[in-house]
């Protein structure tokens, strides 16, 4: 059943703060095999003008996706997550995420459309720091495959 387009524009309350740890950034950088010293060496990061180690550009996805769980699990929307694939992903940065940040995410449903029987859901997460300043916007498009294709 198609998702209800009246949910376009629906916003969810900001999440509880996620505290960004140096070691979590290090773990992520190792996992993607990226040896850029700005991710692991505070002195190298400071030499580039950052207060502390910064996180790789795609690091904020995990935080934003967790916040998007409010949409995915919204019983009123009724998304069947077992049919969902990640269609596309965009980030717009005001600054990189850095160690010590306490980040909250405010999630909005930007769009719902039907494409070849699939539901296409665009979810925007506005990520802000503890002072309320914008850090990054993460926009994800989730595609819920039509039910008759799922059994293939």
């Amino acid at each position, binding site marked *: 059943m198609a998702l209800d387009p009246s949910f376009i524009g629906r916003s969810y309350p900001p999440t509880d703060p996620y505290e960004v740890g140096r070691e979590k950034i290090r773990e992520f950088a190792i*996992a993607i095999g990226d040896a*850029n010293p700005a991710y692991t060496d505070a002195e190298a990061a400071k030499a580039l*003008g950052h207060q502390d180690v910064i996180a790789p*550009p795609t690091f904020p996805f995990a935080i934003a996706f967790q916040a998007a769980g409010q949409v995915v699990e919204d019983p009123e929307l009724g998304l069947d997550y077992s049919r969902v694939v990640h269609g596309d992903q965009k980030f717009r940065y005001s600054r990189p995420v850095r160690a010590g940040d306490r980040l909250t995410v405010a999630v909005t449903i930007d769009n719902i459309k039907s494409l070849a029987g699939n539901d296409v859901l665009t979810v925007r997460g506005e990520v802000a720091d503890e002072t309320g300043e914008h850090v990054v916007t993460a926009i994800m498009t989730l595609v819920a495959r039509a039910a008759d294709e799922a059994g293939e």
Partner: protein
Amino acid sequence: MAINYDEVEVGTELPAQSFPVTRATLVRYAGASGDFNPIHWNEKFALEVGLPDVIAHGMFTMAEAIRVVTDWVGDPAAVVEYGVRFTRPVPVPNDGVGAVIEVSAKVAKKLEDRRVQVDLLATSGGQKVLGMSRAVVRLA
């Protein structure tokens, strides 16, 4: 060394890179990212849902692709926008070799405020795996 806007032209190629990915890579990425979807580590499950094999996390491929840009500019904070479309999965066989993600990139547009648009091409096994893959980067 920072890249100077004035020394870059439309068509300037960034150094291309190859990123190997094995099952061990995916397990490590699952842990670091918190994405434990079994299609990324459980072959039986992946086959049952119609995939050819265990596949790499799309976000892993996205993370690798932007390294071509961040290694070029030095400071990852120079990336002000980054977006991709996940057009095709990257199957990762359990053969000890895995898959390779090949990434090339070139300057597609010179923008205002010393920014450039970089278009990325990511392939694996000769197939394009990301579409609409581009970054906006602020140069020195």
